[in-house]
């Protein structure tokens, strides 16, 4: 773990001044050769951002010094076309993050982001043949401006919230994915994100469009090296699940514990579409993230499976939102959280069933595990029902590793530390089993590491 926290040597081609201004926004846009409409959009977003107050609900944001952040960095490495050309240093980082060997060979479809720009990545030929687009957002805008213009900001408008406005003003990098009608992408598309400079802000913008009858699984994983001062990560992810399409978006974030991770993720789901968010929050100082599904078409389905882990000095304020607009829409939220060493986990969620969403159903299950007497767990759900013909259920429990469970496992010869870790891993299992194997292993490994020496 310790070498994971070492800062990799990285050279930056261009490092904008700290702080934010219209001049900087123009500079970013000019450096990227963006169309005029995008610059206008950025400038409008900047105005909105500056006019909105800092949110006072959720976590404590007073530690962020917005003026001391670099809003744009461009690393030296050019986008790589194939794996052989990938610099050893980046390969090493993948090794540290724990990408398995076999996986690395399949990394043809990988986008890895070092700070503000996608460093390398090339698209698998088979996917390209099917018409699947998988680019960095910057390239996406360059090559498919009409597609980007049609969808960008349609589910997360730039005035949605202060941080979404900030992202809309200074976004850089992120992924752009388009899956054509009836195309099934069997291999998950992956991207690794990373913050690599002190006080580097990351403002990726991701846009995924799954056209009618298509399916895709996108994986985003993060790991950040150690830094002394607070850093900000404010991403926006927008997903469009068209009629009968299916999208899974899996994230495991393990940001270093001084990072503010404030993310807006939202999906628009059309008739018979399915959206599944799988979200693991292990790192960061404060994460505020509530992935949402707008269930707009008949029988659309939204699902959220999440795990939050809060250790010393950490606050995971996470949850989900399910907005039922159409008949027979269904949603499910399963949230598991663990707090330890004074950490705090909060579930914050919304289920809203609008008038006319006849036959809608929603189920929310929140389970929290508090591992010691100094840690904390909160649950703040809002459940609004405006239609009679519906079923909404919400359940939550808070518990601990019981003495009986420990005695049982120790009675089989298992040490107390290991017994604790087993119970915690078992608690997370329903969500962990939904994420790809290597992430699951990574998460279990992390829990075991965090649990070592936890008692006595």
């Amino acid at each position: 773990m310790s070498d994971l926290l070492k800062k990799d040597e990285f050279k930056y081609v261009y490092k904008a001044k700290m702080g934010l201004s219209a001049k900087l926004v123009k500079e970013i846009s000019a450096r990227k050769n963006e169309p005029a409409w995008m610059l206008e959009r950025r400038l409008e977003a900047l105005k909105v951002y500056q006019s909105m107050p800092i949110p006072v609900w959720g976590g404590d944001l007073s530690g962020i010094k917005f003026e001391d952040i670099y809003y744009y960095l461009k690393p030296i490495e050019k986008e790589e076309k194939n794996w052989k050309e990938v610099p050893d240093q980046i390969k090493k980082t993948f090794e540290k993050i724990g990408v398995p060997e076999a996986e690395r060979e399949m990394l043809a479809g990988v986008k890895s982001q070092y700070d503000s720009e996608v460093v390398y990545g090339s698209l698998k030929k088979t996917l390209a043949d099917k018409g699947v687009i998988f680019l960095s957002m910057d390239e996406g805008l360059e090559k498919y401006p009409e597609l980007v213009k049609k969808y960008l900001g349609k589910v997360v408008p730039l005035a949605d919230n202060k941080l979404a406005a900030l992202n809309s003003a200074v976004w850089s990098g992120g992924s752009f994915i388009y899956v054509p009608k009836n195309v099934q992408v069997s291999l998950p598309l992956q991207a690794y994100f990373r913050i690599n400079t002190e006080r580097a802000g990351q403002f990726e913008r991701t846009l995924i469009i799954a056209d009618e009858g298509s399916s895709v699984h996108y994986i985003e994983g993060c790991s950040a090296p150690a830094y002394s001062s607070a850093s900000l990560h404010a991403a926006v992810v927008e997903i469009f699940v068209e009629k009968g399409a299916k999208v899974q978006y899996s994230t495991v974030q393990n940001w270093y514990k001084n990072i503010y991770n404030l993310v807006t993720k939202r999906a628009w789901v059309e008739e018979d579409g399915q959206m599944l968010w799988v979200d693991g929050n292990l790192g960061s100082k404060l994460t505020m993230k509530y992935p949402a599904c707008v269930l707009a078409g008949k029988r659309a389905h939204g699902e959220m499976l999440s795990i939050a882990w809060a250790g010393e000095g950490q606050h995971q304020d996470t949850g989900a939102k399910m907005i039922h607009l159409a008949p027979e829409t269904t949603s499910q939220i399963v949230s598991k959280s663990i707090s330890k060493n004074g950490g705090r986990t909060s579930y914050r969620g919304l289920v809203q069933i609008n008038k006319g969403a006849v036959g809608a159903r929603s189920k929310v299950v929140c389970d929290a595990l508090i591992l010691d007497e100094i840690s904390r767990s909160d649950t703040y759900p809002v459940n609004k029902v405006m239609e009679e013909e519906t079923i909404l259920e919400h359940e939550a429990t808070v518990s601990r590793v019981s003495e009986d469970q420990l005695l049982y496992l120790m009675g089989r010869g298992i040490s107390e530390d290991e017994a604790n870790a087993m119970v915690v891993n078992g608690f997370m299992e329903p969500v962990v089993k939904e994420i790809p194997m290597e992430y699951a292993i990574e998460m279990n490994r992390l829990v075991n590491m965090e649990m070592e020496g936890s008692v006595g």
Partner: protein
Amino acid sequence: MEKQVFDKPGKYEINLQLNEEGQLLEWLGVVEARKIGDYDLVLTVDHRRPKTVGKVIVRGVAENGARIRISGLVRIEKKAEESESSLVMKVLLVDKESKAEVDPKMEILTNKVKASHSASVGKIDEEQLFFLESRGIEREYAKKMIINGFLN
């Protein structure tokens, strides 16, 4: 068990405090929202001492365009070790014009506790209705019977 009925539109704030070690509190709140209007119940169950037990149930029925909002917070303070708390909220929407919001919240500041809550919103169970109808009871009357049973 203590029971309180809220059958007129308005905002009601109820603070239930468990201030004595080992205290048991059983409370039933019934929101009968049978006329148009907003029925707001803001409920707090505050465990302040060790080994306190809170069992709180809130049931609501909304009809004729009524809107029910129940916000219930269970808070277990750091020193309220070995406390147990359960909060159950259930709302029945009887017609198309009525609405409900149920927000069961928890703030748990220590780990030697048992806490759970549940909330549900739905309409009258069709199977229950069918059963009563099969016994020769007219549908509207069967609904009334089910609502009465639910509230009592």
